[in-house]
């Protein structure tokens, strides 16, 4: 287990006495100014961790809503560098904001250089990274963790319903901040129903980590979010927010409804 600075780490979002809402928006969508409004809407709506998506042309883990927002942002020239700039501007303007995790595919990090990307992100006030196409046991993942550790950044790895015990162990051992548990097979996106075996999935993951577990992929409605919050420390909501990202008012209302449902669930100390 990697210990990180609690003051700036992602873990801070899970230490508020209730279950946490990890709220995703896409950087640069529909444009730079609207992205700032969207981030403000997440804060005023009550998000506990902000997950800021980096536009990428080949988002293999994302469903149609996030993929399409990413393409839109890409077309206006948004990428990793611009997402980090956005985070820096936002952190400066809103020092009380919840911790920010950048969600990016691995190639933009490779292209910029692991060390440079980590250094710039830390400088921008980012607290950690989620990289969905970088499994924890790969040689590149070790290099990436070293770069992040050197700059006090958390590295969140993903666990899936198909993960074997050995793989869950690697996810637990390599993650810091929190563990991202993918609730169902497939890509990101809203789903009518959640996996029935979610409680046992979370329980299995807990055998391999003491970090907070946040569950994502498919959660879109307040009732679903509350259900997830009763079994895990955090709930990740993405597509349902990105769908409303062009309208900050609508986005804020959605975040608030989900946050209220999630925050109503107390967290029991483990």
């Amino acid at each position, binding site marked *: 287990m990697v210990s990180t600075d609690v003051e700036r780490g992602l873990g801070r979002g899970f230490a508020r006495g209730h279950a946490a809402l990890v709220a995703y928006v896409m950087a640069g969508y529909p444009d730079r100014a609207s992205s700032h409004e969207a981030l403000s809407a997440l804060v005023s709506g009550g998000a506990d961790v902000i997950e800021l998506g980096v536009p*990428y*042309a*080949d988002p*293999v*883990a994302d*469903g149609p809503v996030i*993929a399409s927002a990413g393409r839109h942002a*890409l077309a206006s020239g948004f*990428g*990793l*560098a611009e997402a980090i700039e956005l985070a820096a501007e936002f952190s400066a303007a809103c020092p009380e904001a919840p911790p920010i995790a950048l969600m990016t*595919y*691995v*190639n*933009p*990090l*490779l*292209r*910029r250089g692991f060390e440079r990307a980590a250094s710039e992100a830390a400088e921008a006030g980012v607290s950690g990274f989620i990289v*969905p*196409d*970088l*499994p924890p046991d*790969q*040689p*590149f993942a070790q290099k990436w963790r070293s770069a992040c550790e050197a700059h006090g950044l958390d590295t969140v*790895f*993903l*666990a*899936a*319903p*198909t*993960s*074997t015990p050995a*793989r869950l162990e690697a*996810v637990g051992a390599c993650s810091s901040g929190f563990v991202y548990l*993918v609730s169902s*097979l*497939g*890509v990101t996106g809203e789903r009518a129903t959640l996996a029935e075996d979610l409680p046992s999935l979370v329980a299995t993951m807990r055998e391999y980590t003491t970090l907070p577990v946040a569950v994502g992929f498919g959660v879109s409605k307040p009732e679903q979010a509350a259900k997830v919050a009763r079994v895990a420390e955090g709930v990740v909501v993405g597509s349902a927010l990105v769908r409303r990202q062009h309208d900050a008012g609508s986005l804020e209302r959605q975040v608030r409804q989900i946050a209220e449902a999630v925050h109503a669930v107390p967290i029991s100390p483990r």
Partner: protein
Amino acid sequence: MADVLLPSADDAYSSPDAQGFYGAYGGTFVPETVMPVLAELEAAYREAQADPSFAEELSLLLTDYVGRPSPLYRADRLAQAAGLGAVYLKREDLDHTGAHKINNTLGQCLLAKRMGKHRVIAETGAGQHGVATATTAALMGLECAVFMGTEDIRRQSLNVYKMRLLGAEVVPVAEGTGTLADAVTAALRHWVERVRDTFYVIGSVVGPHPYPQIVRDFQSVIGKETIAQIAEKAIPQVDAVVACVGGGSNAAGMFYPFIHDVPAADRPLLIGAEAAGLGLDTGKHGAALTKGTPGVLHGFYSYVLQDDAGNPREAYSISAGLDYPGVGPEHSFFKDQGLVRYEAVTDTEALEAFALLTRTEGIIPAIESSHALALLPRLAKELGPEAVVIVNVSGRGDKDMDIVREAGLGID
């Protein structure tokens, strides 16, 4: 019986390292959901390698169903026109379904059955891999869905029709440029969702480990046969062996046995022909090895055409099979090690070579394979009029009639 090359697991050179790297290239860069399935695939492949009945079953199919070994044909009128001593054509165009792709789909679908999967998916560019997968699925009674870009569906309507006739579902992919790269992404996304009951039959030496190795091994029957045929025909010297490279499976299948089994001193020049499209300086090409830089695409680290932010760039080629911004990781390794030389061939050069083979030998090649044929005049200049060259004719050109006609080639 066709000679199947399934190197044993302890043959150090045959395998990438434990994490799937060929030197710096390869690996597994995929969502966690599919990681355990890749490990299962690797284990199933190791088991198959150790099981003589697997090689026997595959070998029988390659012989009686595909028609292997494919001939190594001495093309004298072509050699004369190109100014070379001799040109031999490895006739993968005569394989059942009209291209080398079936060597791989038979192997992978047998693996799918061993793993208890009753449903297969595939991506396709030119449609050759889609047709080969649909054919194999029909043969083995597997359910089959093929992902294909909408632009490729337009360019290759005949193959789309064939796949549907064979009972496969063709899933149109409209995202991006509607070409091969988009089809791969769509297939990967679908696989993440259906990973428990679905086997992903990848069509080239690309994708996350262990796919590049599995596909290369199944295609190595091409090079292995070629080496045996050189001996049978008592060809005293071969100066060069050429193959086209999109993802790179026919080239890997041809080159790998020469690298693995032939001592460096006796080894002919190995040359891969990438797509230069409208020209390397136009930005409209598919030459990942010539113009790309190392990066991750579709789950593996290799040379890739990408922008400054790390997004894959759109590839372009007149040939749907070479229209891909990446290339198999082992080719990147071969390039860096100097084991294979890679050159780029424009649309125009490929069309000229297409016409030349058609008119001198009565063989209509795939427009992909025509890129390899286009190296012949260059090799005549480089190696002289006595040189002996083998060209892998990876597929036949029936599917390309509309494109060739649109390009204004042939009868006036």
